[in-house]
């Protein structure tokens, strides 16, 4: 039989990602060239890094002996600011993003409203929280209020977009059925759309709560209050045991927020 010959031939594995020979070689060599160039621009001051090792060791030491007590007042104040900021901004952000999300869903809103709402979402999503915080600190002055406004603003882009995408993907028959009974726009939204997206909306709000806490821990670096400000001061003072105490607290809080929000989300959905 002639098939026997075919078996004895060696099998070669086909390239997995890019089939075309030319493009594979071009992309790989381009990537290599870029890597060489990029690594070439790295100016590492080994002397400085060597001196830094000692600081790194001190930092690690600080991690083993975190100091919660000597700057307890500042840590407590920063933490309280972060938590309250997170709660208020998530709530306000959610309340504002629900109407914007409704407006940005093409299947339930007219084109002009849709365009305006999508524009608001795009503006809010374009920049990092830190950059928004810089602007709001310049407007509202230093402190937690600027952070609150920043996080609320950032929440709008995140939540309104996901909510709008969700509404666009609903089962249209249910909304159609409500419309078929003679329900107006409000009734369609209330009885046809809302029951379908509500579990997702609650889940997303909890997820955003979690994100807002993480962000509240860094926007303090540009002056928007919260635990980030305390951390920044501790680092500036080379007070590593306080800094590591703050970091440990942040990790614990983030994990708590993540697990509890994940638990509630599972329970709701």
């Amino acid at each position, binding site marked *: 039989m002639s098939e026997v010959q075919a078996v004895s031939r060696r099998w070669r*594995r086909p390239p*997995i*990602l890019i089939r075309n020979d030319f493009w594979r070689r071009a992309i790989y060599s381009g990537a290599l060239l*870029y*890597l060489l160039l*990029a690594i070439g*621009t*790295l*100016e*590492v*001051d080994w002397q*400085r*890094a060597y*001196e*830094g*090792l000692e*600081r*790194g060791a001190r*930092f690690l030491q600080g991690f083993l002996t975190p100091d919660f007590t000597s700057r307890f007042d500042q840590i407590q104040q920063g933490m*309280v*600011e972060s*938590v*309250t*900021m997170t*709660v*208020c901004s998530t*709530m306000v952000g959610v309340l504002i993003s629900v109407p914007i999300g409704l407006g940005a869903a093409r299947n339930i809103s007219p084109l002009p409203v849709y365009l305006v709402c999508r524009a608001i979402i795009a503006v809010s999503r*374009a*920049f*990092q929280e*830190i*950059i928004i915080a*810089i*602007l709001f600190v*310049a*407007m*509202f*002055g230093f*402190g*937690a*209020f600027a952070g*609150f406004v920043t996080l609320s603003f950032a929440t709008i882009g995140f939540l309104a977009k996901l909510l709008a995408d969700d509404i666009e993907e609903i089962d249209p028959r249910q909304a159609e059925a409500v419309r078929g009974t003679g329900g107006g726009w409000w009734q369609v939204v209330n*009885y046809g759309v809302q029951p379908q997206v509500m579990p997702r909306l609650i889940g997303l709000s909890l997820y955003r709560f979690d994100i807002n806490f*993480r*962000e509240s*821990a*860094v926007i303090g*670096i540009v002056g928007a209050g919260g635990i*980030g400000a305390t*951390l*920044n001061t501790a*680092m500036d003072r*080379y007070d590593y045991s306080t*800094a590591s105490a703050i*970091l440990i607290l*942040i*990790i614990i809080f*983030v*994990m708590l927020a*993540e697990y509890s929000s994940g638990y509630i989300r599972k329970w709701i959905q």
Partner: protein
Amino acid sequence: MPVWQTEQGPAWRHRTTTAQWLHWLGWLLAAMAFVVCWQIMTVDTKWFFVKDAPSQAADLFSRAWPPKWSYVNTLWGALWDTINIATLGTLIGVMLAVPVAFLAARNTTPSHLVLRPFALFVIVASRSINSLIWALLLVAILGPGILAGIIAIALRSIGFVGKLLYEAIEEIDESQVEAVQATGASRAQVIDYGIVPQVLPAFAGICVFRWDINIRESTILGLVGAGGIGLQLQSSLNTLAWSQVTVIFALILATVIFSEWVSSRVRKNII
């Protein structure tokens, strides 16, 4: 859906009475939490500044406009640094994340008792600290510069890439793995021929997605001294040169949009 018998016949209601009460209770608790948090948060707020905000904003925009476009020529070097921070950081992060993901996935981990919890801890720890905080630490240790930025991005990326990759590994088609095992392949060969081809498209998608996020994050790392365009932003902010800040924002926006475009193109072609 609850239906009530009334004198006029059956009536439909949206919720049961208990559900209704729970609903109101939930809203009441949320409102109370808001009021309490608001009180605590605004203790130190200077309302004078808040009232003044619209005029401050107007003042800010009048100083930020028109943008000083000539300044853009001094930014190209910083932009190149920013892109390098994001790319090299993603690369290092991915290299560290791959073994972590294989240790964390239920079907590939060599030990469920020790290594899997350890890998999961690495993933959670990396995700819970923002890259800006990583950068703050690394600048203190390594000194200012783009190396600190690269490592910060790398450490931050491990959790993200590791988590998504290990979920992809857990979702593979086991029959292909069994087929490779049936040929008598070793453990490494099973991974190489049975698992890697299945997760590779997802892996490439995750990497490009993370690269896109890292471009955004690396634009601000300079605020704490970790190199890139954030350094220029910091110095412009310190000298209150708002017309330069506008230029930097525009450049950051353009870069972010570009990276988003690249990443969505690549992901569309792969998956």
